[in-house]
């Protein structure tokens, strides 16, 4: 599903923020990526959601060497990936409904199918009464649920979440993680970047630990 081989990454002409990262994730797996702030968690996710290309090494996604895919093939690959961005990146002038509908519209789904699925999902995450609210009028936690709904609406094969529990208290954070586990049970490969140890410790998923741009260990679970 995801393979990194000796991957290095830098922003522009800056120093390497990831060095010699090598790992492989099986389809249907569930991993936490952890490490101190600035360790490179977000950068690692950016490589996986194809926002950046590695400066060296190989990144393979869905059995394709993404270091070499032409620009025109990226949209099709990206449609199989759902992303919860650290800062949500909701479109501020669109309603919650239209934000969640975006991945389906972009993929060319029919409008009545979109209406049904989006309404269902937003109802499921408890935003039934906020379908037409714009992000600035929603609380941080509500915006986060919109962001998560947008990430999962198109049934991605790979779900990537960057600090998805950053803005909510631990009870809500755990509930959101149950949602990700639910998706994982239905076959989605999940990778969650977080520095929240107390959350990680409540689940028995493997942990990838980053420090200063290097992958220092992959533990099978926090319990080990």
């Amino acid at each position: 599903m995801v393979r990194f081989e000796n991957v290095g990454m830098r922003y522009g002409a800056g120093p390497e923020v990831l060095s010699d990262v090598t790992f492989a994730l099986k389809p249907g797996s569930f991993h936490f990526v952890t490490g101190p702030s600035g360790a490179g968690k977000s950068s690692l996710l950016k490589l996986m959601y194809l926002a950046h290309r590695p400066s060296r090494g190989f990144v393979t996604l869905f059995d394709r060497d993404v270091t070499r895919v032409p620009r025109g093939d990226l949209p099709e690959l990206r449609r199989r990936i759902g992303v919860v961005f650290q800062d949500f990146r909701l479109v501020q002038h669109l309603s919650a409904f239209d934000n969640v509908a975006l991945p389906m519209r972009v993929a060319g789904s029919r409008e009545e199918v979109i209406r049904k699925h989006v309404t269902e999902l937003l109802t499921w995450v408890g935003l039934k009464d906020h379908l037409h609210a714009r992000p600035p009028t929603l609380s941080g936690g509500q915006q986060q649920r919109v962001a998560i709904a947008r990430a999962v609406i198109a049934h991605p094969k790979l779900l990537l979440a960057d600090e998805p529990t950053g803005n909510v208290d631990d009870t809500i954070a755990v509930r959101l993680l149950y949602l990700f586990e639910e998706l994982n049970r239905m076959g989605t490969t999940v990778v969650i970047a977080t520095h929240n140890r107390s959350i990680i410790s409540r689940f028995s998923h493997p942990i990838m630990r980053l420090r200063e741009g290097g992958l220092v260990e992959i533990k099978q679970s926090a319990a080990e």
Partner: protein
Amino acid sequence: MSRPQSLLPLSREPSTRLLPWIIGVMVYLAVLIFAAALLLANIAANWDREMSAGFTVQIPPAAGDAPEALEARVAAVVKTLKEAAGVGEVAVVSPEVTALALEPWLGPNIEAHDLPLPRVVEVHFADRATVDMAALIAKLEEAAPGTVVDNHEFWRNQIVSLVGGLETLATVAIALIGFTAMAAVIFTTRSSVAIQRDVIEVLHLIGATDDYVAHEFQRQAFWISLSGSASGTVLAVATLYLLGQLAGNLDTALMPDLSLGAWQSVLLWAVPLLACLIATMTARRTVLAALRRMP
């Protein structure tokens, strides 16, 4: 809330709000200039048709000629003309009519000036192709020495070059208008793409193709330019109508026919449509070029 929000609204910044106006003014000017060029071409074609329908022969009185001698020469000219192949109607213009035609220049009492007026014969072609002008001119000179044949060559050449010059001018003006409007569309689209870079990036990460993003801009550019060019065209047509009314009040003898043919009207209506098409395609190409520079 009723109308769905546009995904990448083009019209949020002040520069975009000017765009329909800019396109409206440009289309207004382009339609007027184009209409003027078409009318001019029509007038020139009319004149040309009238002028090439025949020619005039002037028989100047020789110094000290008796009036009878002049009449005899006129008769000789008329005889020669009637015998020539391809010549149709031959009409001798009476001295009174000639004097009347010269009145604006020479004043009412030409007789009093004792100016020797030439006699004028107007000739219409029956079949222009069979007329051998050079041979005819030689024969006329033989019949009545000093005869001047004016086949309007000079005026026709003048008009052809004048109309050609004005048409070039109109083409250049319309091209400049087009380039200016395109520049406005390019500028607005670029700044719009730059301002909405974040949203475009999210769209890309969600799996939108460049084409999808370009389509969002393109659609708005189409509606903006349609509203602009529709108002520009309506104003231009109203202006042309008013000018037509004013012209109608003038002496009809002086005014040439100011109307466009059917296919010319179609061409005129093509101006706003072409403006829409150009604006839409310009927006599309601008967005695609800008997107290719994004990751």
